[in-house]
C-alpha cells in the first residue's frame, strides 16, 4: 500500500447563516483518487480555488473529509486517534513563512516539532543539527528568523518539519511568496531531501516550472482531478492545460507554437536544452530538405 492513498475523497465547505441553515455548499474536493508510493516526488498543480490546498490539509489531518477515505501510511485520517500519528508521518510546510515560524531563534523553532512529540533533549539537539544541515541553514542556527530572507525562512520551516522525521512532507505553495532566487533555494532543498533522505514529497503549486522535475503530476481544477501523468505526458497536452487556466512553461509553449506552425517538434518539451536540441535537429533536417528541394 502506498504512503498516501485517497479513495473518492470529498470535501464540502458548508456556509451557514445565523440560524444554522445551509446557505451554500462549495465542493472543494470532488471524488478524488490519489496514490503515492514512498520516495516519490509528486506535484499537484492547480489554479487558485482548485482545491489543492484543501487536499493538502486533509493529508495532515487538519481538515476531516466529508466523504470518502484518505489513508496516510495505512492510517485513516478521519479517525481522531490517528491524528497525531498522521501529522508525524506527513509534515506540512505552508505558504507564508512568517506565519509558521513559532520561536524567535532558528534552532528553537526547528526544535519545536520534536519537543511536541516528546523527543528526549539530546536527541532534539541531534535532529535540529541534522535537519538544519540538510537544508543548508546550519550556520544561521542562532539567528532571529526576522532577519532571514523569504527563501531562508522557508528552508527553516522545512527543517522544522524534517526534525520530526516524517516519511512524507507536503509543501503547500511554499514558493508563492518568494522571489525567483528564494524559489530556487526552496525547490533545491525539497529535491535534495527527496533524493538523499528518501522523503516522499508532495509539492503543491501553481507554477508550472516547478513540476518539471517531479516523478508524477496531478492537475486539479475546481475540486476535480483533470489530468495526471508524468511531467512529459502532462506538458504534451498544452491545450488542455490552457483550458484549466494553467500557464504552460515558456519553452513548452514555444515548442507547441512551433509545432502548430508546422515545425516537426516532439510533444512534451519542458526545458530550454530540450527545445534547443529539438530545434537544431529540425533545422538540420529542414535545411537538408530545402537543399534537396532546390
Amino acid at each position, binding site marked *: 500500500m502506498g504512503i498516501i492513498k485517497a479513495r473518492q475523497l470529498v470535501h464540502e465547505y458548508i456556509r451557514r447563516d445565523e440560524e444554522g441553515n445551509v446557505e451554500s455548499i462549495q465542493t472543494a474536493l470532488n471524488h478524488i483518487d490519489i496514490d503515492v508510493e514512498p520516495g516519490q516526488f509528486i506535484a499537484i498543480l492547480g489554479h487558485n480555488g482548485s482545491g489543492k490546498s484543501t487536499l493538502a490539509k486533509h493529508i495532515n489531518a*487538519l481538515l476531516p473529509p466529508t466523504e470518502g477515505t484518505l489513508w496516510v501510511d495505512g492510517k485513516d485520517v478521519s479517525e481522531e486517534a490517528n491524528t497525531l500519528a498522521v501529522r508525524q508521518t506527513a509534515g506540512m510546510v505552508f505558504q507564508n513563512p*512568517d*506565519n509558521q515560524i*513559532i520561536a*524567535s531563534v532558528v534552532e*528553537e523553532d526547528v526544535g519545536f516539532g520534536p519537543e511536541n512529540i516528546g523527543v528526549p533533549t539530546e536527541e532534539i539537539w541531534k535532529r535540529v543539527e541534522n535537519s538544519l544541515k540538510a537544508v543548508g541553514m546550519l550556520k544561521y542556527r542562532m539567528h532571529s528568523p526576522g532577519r532571514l530572507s523569504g527563501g531562508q525562512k522557508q528552508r527553516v520551516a522545512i527543517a522544522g518539519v524534517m526534525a520530526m522525521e516524517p516519511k512524507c512532507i507536503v509543501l503547500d505553495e511554499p514558493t508563492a511568496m518568494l522571489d525567483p532566487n528564494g524559489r530556487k533555494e526552496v525547490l533545491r532543498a525539497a529535491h535534495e531531501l527527496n533524493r538523499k533522505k528518501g522523503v516522499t514529497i508532495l509539492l503543491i503549486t501553481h507554477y508550472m516550472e516547478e513540476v518539471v522535475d517531479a516523478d508524477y503530476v496531478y492537475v486539479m481544477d475546481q475540486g476535480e482531478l483533470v489530468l495526471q501523468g508524468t511531467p512529459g505526458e502532462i506538458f504534451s497536452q498544452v491545450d488542455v492545460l490552457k483550458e484549466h487556466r494553467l500557464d504552460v512553461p515558456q519553452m513548452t509553449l514555444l515548442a507547441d507554437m512551433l509545432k502548430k506552425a508546422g515545425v516537426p517538434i516532439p510533444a512534451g518539451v519542458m526545458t530550454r536544452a530540450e527545445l534547443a536540441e529539438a530545434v537544431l535537429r529540425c533545422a538540420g533536417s529542414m535545411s537538408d530538405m530545402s537543399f534537396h528541394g532546390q
Partner: protein
Amino acid sequence: MLRDITLGQYYPADSVIHKLDPRVKLSAAMIYIISLFCCKGIAAFFAATVFLITVIKLSKVPFQFMVKGLKAIVVLMLLTAVFNLFLTPGKPLVSFLIFTITEEGLKNAVFMAVRLTYLILGTSVMTLTTTPNGLTDGLEKSLSPLNKIGVPVHVIAMIMSIALRFIPILIEETDKIMKAQMARGADFETGNLIRKVKNMIPLLVPLFVSAFRRADELAMAMEARCYNGGEGRTKMKPLRYQAKDRIAYLILFGYFAAVIVCRIFLPWPA
C-alpha cells in the same frame, strides 16, 4: 517612533548576564523592583545605583540602547514628579500663586523620578539579556506550582512567547499599512486629538484583520507540527541551575540585605 520600543527586545551579546538562568534574572528583576520601593535615604539609593551600573556594565549592552527605552516613560515621569512636587504636604520651601513646593515634595519628586528610571532600566536589563523564549521558559518553570490549582501556566507562557515573537512583525506591518494609506491620502499627522484618533481607523482595521489571519495560520502551523498543549512535551533547552546561578542569587540577596540595612541605619534624608 514605533521602533524605539525596547521592551521585549533581545540584545544578543556574549556576557555573564546573558548566560544566567532566566529564572535568576526574573527573580532579580522582582527583587530589584521591591528594593527600589524599600529604598530610603541616599545610602540605599547609592547601593541601588552601584548594583544597576555593575549589572549594565556586565551585560555588555550599550547604555544608549537602554536609555532609548526611557523615552517612552518621560511623560509619566514628569507627571509623577510634578504631582509629588506640588501636592505633598509638609514644610513649605517656595511658594508662588497657589502653588507651594514643600521640602518633602521636592524629596519625593526626586526619589520618585529616580525610582521610575531605575525600574525601567532594571527591567530592560532583564529583557535585553534574555531571549523571549528563555523568559517564558523561566516564567513557566517558576510558576509551575500554580498548575496544581488549575492555572494553565504552559498556555500562558506559550501565548507570551508568541506575542513577543510577533511584536516586530506587527510593527513592520503597521509601518507598511501606514505608508500604503498615506500614499492614498490618509493623514495621520495633523488635526486635534479626536481627529487623530479617528484617522487611525484606516490603520487599525487592516492591522486587526491581518493579525487575525496570521493567528489562524499560525495555529494551523502549530497543529500541523503536533502541538497539543503542554502535556508530554520535552524541552530542547531545559532549565538547570548551575554554579554561576547560585552565586548570582547570593549576590542578589547580599544587595537586598544592604538596601534594608541602609534603610534602617542610614535613612538620611528621610
